[in-house]
């Protein structure tokens, strides 16, 4: 296994390389940006149409009341878990190879949550009344229903979003200070000056910073788990066959980590190319990432099987019918595609030769995400099409172009946010790469490690 990172890389060089990403990306960056904006245009157009005409244009119906919006909502929520995985979990586990790549993973967390949040709005029949969901003292003397998993969602996502934004921001303060010190004019200078809060890298700052970062990381892990468990309880708390499954929360969390990792691989490759990060986002790191993804894929597969088995050997005939319907009904192609992309395809990642083959990984990681997206859709659609009440079973409900348009546009929205972030803020954590380089070089010199080293 090669080196995660060259330990002889000069610190000034790190600054220079990363700061360069704020200045002059490859042309591909602008192309991506343009495409993203065009995609958002599609979504905005679709949403305006849907807003004005009514939810009916999304081609849902009375037994099939949820569609792609909720599926994609879960998808994006799931996506957000990767950031937490890399920055918080691996941070606690002292896996320092995460350092060059955790920043963008965290940004991904934030932006995919922001995208997910939009889907809640898009999904609502009366989105102009969305403030009814907020618990605030009002003149109507009315409160939201705190028993509803959707309100839990609201709480959980608000918590998660604000916590991860803070986490991202706090972790970025030292880097913002670097930016402040190296950029001397323009709005950026002002932005970095304000945002770095006057960080000087003093020992007092570092000391508190370290503890704070660790504490929030500790909070974020259960939070992330709870967020996706709560999203899972939107389903598990209901009585729909196919949803009313005890193992949904862990299953959702595993799926979330899985899709998040796959997305990180994709973005890793894109960023590496676009911002010329070859020195930092190195193949050995990719290799570790791929192996992690593989492991999570197997966990997910296992939980998937558990879910099927518990339904199959359970006594709930309705749920069993539902499972059979999924595997044999009109949704069968999607179901089997999901199994293929989610469980079979990742087996490829077990082979060394694919673990660093970027073009293949790029394609595979996208397919994995397609599989994970299908997983969410396969939770939503077949259950509605085959619920408790046979009279209202509907024909396979194919979403309308409006739904597809908004889902499609959401990827543009995410990409736009993400790409703008990478252009404005250092997407590789400079100070942590320096730490990494520093510690690697110390280890290389066979110097006795200082106590408490990591």
């Amino acid at each position, binding site marked *: 296994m090669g080196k995660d990172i060259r330990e002889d890389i000069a610190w000034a060089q790190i600054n220079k390389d990363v700061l360069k990403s704020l200045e002059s990306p490859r042309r591909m960056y602008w192309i991506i940006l343009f495409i993203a904006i065009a995609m958002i245009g599609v979504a905005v157009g679709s949403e305006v149409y849907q807003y*004005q*005409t*009514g*939810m*009916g244009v999304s*081609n*849902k*119906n*009375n*037994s*099939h*009341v*949820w569609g792609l919006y909720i599926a994609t909502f879960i998808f994006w929520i799931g996506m957000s878990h990767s950031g937490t995985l890399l920055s918080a979990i691996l941070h606690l586990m002292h896996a320092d190879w995460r350092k060059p790549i955790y920043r963008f993973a965290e940004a991904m967390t934030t932006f995919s949550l922001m995208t997910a949040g939009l889907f809640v709005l898009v*999904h*609502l*029949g*009366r*989105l102009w*009344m*969305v403030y*009814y*969901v907020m618990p605030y003292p009002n003149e109507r003397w*009315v*409160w*939201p*229903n705190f*028993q*509803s*998993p*959707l*309100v839990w969602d*609201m709480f959980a996502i608000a918590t998660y979003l604000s916590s991860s934004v803070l986490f991202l921001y706090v972790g970025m303060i030292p880097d913002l200070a670097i930016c402040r010190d190296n950029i001397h004019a323009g709005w950026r200078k002002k932005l970095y000056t304000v945002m770095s809060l006057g960080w000087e890298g003093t020992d007092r700052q570092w000391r508190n910073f370290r503890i704070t970062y660790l504490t929030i990381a500790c909070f974020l892990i259960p939070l992330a788990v709870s967020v996706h468990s709560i999203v899972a309880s*939107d389903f598990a*708390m*209901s*009585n*729909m066959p196919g949803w009313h499954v005890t193992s949904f929360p862990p299953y959702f969390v595993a799926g979330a980590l899985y899709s998040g990792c796959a997305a990180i691989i994709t973005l890793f490759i894109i960023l590496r190319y676009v911002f010329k990060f070859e020195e930092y986002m190195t193949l050995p790191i990719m290799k570790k990432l791929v192996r992690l993804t593989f492991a999570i894929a197997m966990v997910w597969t296992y939980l998937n099987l558990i879910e099927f088995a518990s339904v199959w050997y359970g006594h709930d005939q309705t749920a069993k019918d539902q499972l059979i319907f999924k595997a044999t009904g009109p949704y069968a192609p999607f179901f089997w595609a999901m199994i293929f992309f989610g469980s079979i395809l990742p087996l490829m990642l077990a082979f060394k030769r694919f673990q660093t083959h970027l073009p293949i990984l790029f394609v595979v990681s996208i397919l994995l995400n397609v599989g994970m997206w299908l997983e969410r859709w396969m939770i939503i659609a077949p259950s*509605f099409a085959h*619920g*408790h*009440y046979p*009279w*209202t079973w*509907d024909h396979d409900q194919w979403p309308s172009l409006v739904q597809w348009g908004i889902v499609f546009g959401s990827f543009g929205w995410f990409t736009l946010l993400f790409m703008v972030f990478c252009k404005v803020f250092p997407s590789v954590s400079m100070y942590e790469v320096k730490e990494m380089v520093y510690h690697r070089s110390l280890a290389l010199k066979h110097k006795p490690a200082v106590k408490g080293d990591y």
Partner: protein
Amino acid sequence: MSITNLLENWSDFRQQHPSDDRPHREYKWAMSIDLDSCTGCNACSVACYAENNLPVVGKEKFAHGHSHHWIRIERYWDNDGREFADQGAQFLPMLCQHCESAPCETVCPVGATNHTADGLNSQVYNRCVGSRYCNANCPYKARYFNWYDYPTTDNVWPEPMNQQLNPDVTVRGKGVMEKCTFCVQRLTVAKSNARSAGRSVLDGEVQTACQQVCPTGAISFGNLVDPLAKVGKQWMKQQVELNKDKQAKDAEEKAAKLRGYRILEGLRTYPSVMYLEQLRESAI
């Protein structure tokens, strides 16, 4: 002071429906539908359209499953492979079951659907934000969503048809969920009249629109608390109890004479609508 209130009345707040020790006080509206009398003629459904301002969505939208029929007639065949459906069809009017433990109520994020003191499952249109979770969680799928703006952009009631609209019932705009209300506008009037007269509502004083038209009188509706009410007697006779998810009929062989049952009772929704099984003559 809210917290004081909370601490003082804690035991009250931990109380739940349905429960034997805290039955409904004055009213518990319930229904029973005799499937042996129901001929599937659809009169109830039309009556509901007339009474409750249901929009006629048209063929295109009906095809997409956007229809609004708060009471819909389902038609089942049980000819399992025989050449002819020679025992006829089974018709079943399905409407909101006004479950005592309604799955829709707990999941509504804004509390637009609640349980009223009269045992109705209420739906407040104006509070609804349209998350459609209630419908997702309704095992009977008896809730209907306004997928379009029927009164305005869809012009479902072109002039002068809008003059038919019942002013006692809101005309729902787009994005809200709606469902059978047991004709709550009629119940409210009946209760108000009864209170002014210093009594409670008598059996038969108030009818739901569907009950009123039913040519064969298959639908009975009334107050389950009232010992004189027909509906209560029917429930009693059929040994169907509101607060149970397993009835005498399910338990014992000797109860085979009973034909009252509630749909999907196993899900513990405790519906307020009892159905009476359809009968077929064995001699022919």
